[in-house]
């Protein structure tokens, strides 16, 4: 359960103060699939950073369960990101020198599990996204859709409660986009995740239970 109360985020950019989020109050119940849409520079990424404990609000509070993400120490935030929140990025963000399996394993490193268990769990996660036979491939040897599947496996291998996806289909063609959305939707349904997807794509947004539109730092519910 996310609770955002009067969240404002300002940046100083080249001497000008930019208000990326302007007094946003918002609740996202557990298990909801939410799509966030809006124009570029409207505050989508900033909102995702607040939800992902990647940055702190200038004012207001962001709570995930009992944790207040705006006031916790950096090390606690790192811990929450390592256990509670999975990320999927537009550019996949895989480590190019590591194999698919090793990329998935990186998500288990902060959890301190044994090397054997890490490998087993990573292999199972790859299987669950349909890439059980591609564990020893480098990202460059995989297609865009396959790379995003590896990234999804990496996000979910630690069994988080929340999955945050930043334009997960932005770099993919339409067929692959649908495949990835099917996969995410299936995982959301099976695992009872809270899934927040930032997207430009209305076709993607239409699959969500709830659609938010953010423009000039203000959030608006779409019917």
């Amino acid at each position, binding site marked *: 359960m996310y609770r955002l109360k009067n969240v404002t985020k300002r940046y100083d950019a080249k001497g000008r103060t930019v208000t990326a989020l302007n007094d946003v109050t918002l609740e996202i119940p557990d298990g909801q699939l939410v799509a966030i849409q809006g124009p570029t520079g409207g505050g989508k990424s900033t909102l995702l950073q607040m939800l992902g404990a990647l940055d702190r609000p200038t004012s207001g509070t962001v709570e995930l369960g009992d944790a207040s993400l705006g006031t916790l120490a950096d090390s606690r935030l*790192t811990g929450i990101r390592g256990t509670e929140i999975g990320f999927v990025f537009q550019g996949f963000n895989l480590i190019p020198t590591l194999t698919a399996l090793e990329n998935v394993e990186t998500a288990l490193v902060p959890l301190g599990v044994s090397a054997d268990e890490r490998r087993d769990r990573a292999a199972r996660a790859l299987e669950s996204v349909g890439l059980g036979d591609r564990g020893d491939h480098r990202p460059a040897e995989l297609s865009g859709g396959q790379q995003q599947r590896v990234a999804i496996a990496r996000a979910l291998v630690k069994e988080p409660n929340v999955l945050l996806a930043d334009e997960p289909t932005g770099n993919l063609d339409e067929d692959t986009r649908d495949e990835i959305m099917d996969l995410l939707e299936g995982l959301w349904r099976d695992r009872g995740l809270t899934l927040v997807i930032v997207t430009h794509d209305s076709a993607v947004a239409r699959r969500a239970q709830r659609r938010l539109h953010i423009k000039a730092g203000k959030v608006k519910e779409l019917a």
Partner: protein
Amino acid sequence: MFGTYLRRELLGRRRQTIIIAIGMALAIALVIIVNSVATGVRDAQAQVLRSVYGVGTDITITRPVTPPSGTDQGGQGARGPRFDFGAGAGDASGDGSRTVHSSRLTVGFGTQTMAATSLTTVQKVHGVEAASAVLSLTNTTFDGTLPSFGSRQQGGAGATPAPSGGSDAKGGSSFDVDSFTVMGMTPGGRAVGPLSATTLAKGRTLAASDEGKHVAVLDSSYAKSKSIGVGDTLSIGGTDFTVVGTVSPTGSDSATASNVYIPLDVAQKLSSQTGKVSTIYVQAESASAVDSLKASLQKALPKATVATQADLAANVSGSLGSAGQLVSNLGTWLSVIVLAAAFLIAILFTISGVTRRTREFGTLKAIGWSNRRVVGQVAGESVLQGLVGGIAGIAIGLIGVLVVNVVSPTLTGGLSSGRGVAGSMAEGARRTFGGGTGQTGRFGGAFGGASSGARSAAATQVDLSAPVTAWVIALAVALAVLGGLLAGAIGGWRASRLRPAEALRSVQ
């Protein structure tokens, strides 16, 4: 994961790894080679000094040479020996020319003597373990044929007859000037001084009972070159000496400090230097107190030149001296510059690597990697790159040192002979290095020149070997790790400042 990630990064980004490693390798190799050669040169210098001043000598005391003046003081100091022949000197031969022969034992050119009581003064100085005094002399023998100038006067009126006789039967002259070095030393005293660097080859060494006797110990290679054996006689300053033994150098030098060693009192008497010595050799009680002892000795003997081994090393001349300077100046600076360049390359590449991998590290932080883990990864990569370079550098360095040792350049080393401190050292140098076989000068036809017969430059030859010590290898590894740590610390610091939100940076 740390190891896997490390391995994958270093192998996956091979170009960067290789560039950093090559830079580091060259620097480390240079450090090893320069260090080893420097050690080799130092060894060679020590060897040269040891042959002159003996093992265990910490300080030498001499009198500085005063500029030449009209009258000769304290021996032949600034002038060589002079041979005067009267009109009737020598033996007349059939064609009217005369054969002359003279032998002089004099204080060597460039040597100044001091009172033998200086030794007592030195021995009383606090911190002196042992001291001995020697008198360095040169024996010069003149053998020659002079033409018959007398025939001109006897010719009377009319045409002046051409000179006759001499070496070319037309009035020319021929001289042999043979000189060898003689050192007067206290018999029985071998603890400190030139003979401490020698071993007895044949016969016996000078004993305390030899005082006042005409006995001599010869340098073995000089004895060999002159075919003189134990029991033979040798003329020194016109007096016959019995050769009682020969000594050879302990090191790899070709010769000992002097050609001939005789009792000090005899040397003083024959050279008319009664109560005089030329050099005092001092051994300090403690090696760490040499500098303070030098000051005390200088105070006790204000007119004398007091020189430590370090002072003397600075006076080693010849290609050995040049090599010493080259290694200590150019070599050291080159090492420092190349090392700095290698460190800079490693640091810049690491920083650019971190900048390029901004999204990668941001992602790792976003998925829960702690700052410490990310910094450790960056530092680990740098240290490993440094180590790879260091190991390659050790290999290259060892090959370089091997090449130096195989080529084994021969360096020529002597002690420079200038004025002041250097000048006072000159006598030792000449004794030693000129002494191998003695010098023979032959002057056909011309007059004069005899006084410079014993002045040829002299040097010892040392084959340079560059030893590799465990210390140098440890230094190389330490430098490689240091370079890696430096690059890793700076790169890690950059990585630690990356915000996890960088993961969301849009793809370019």
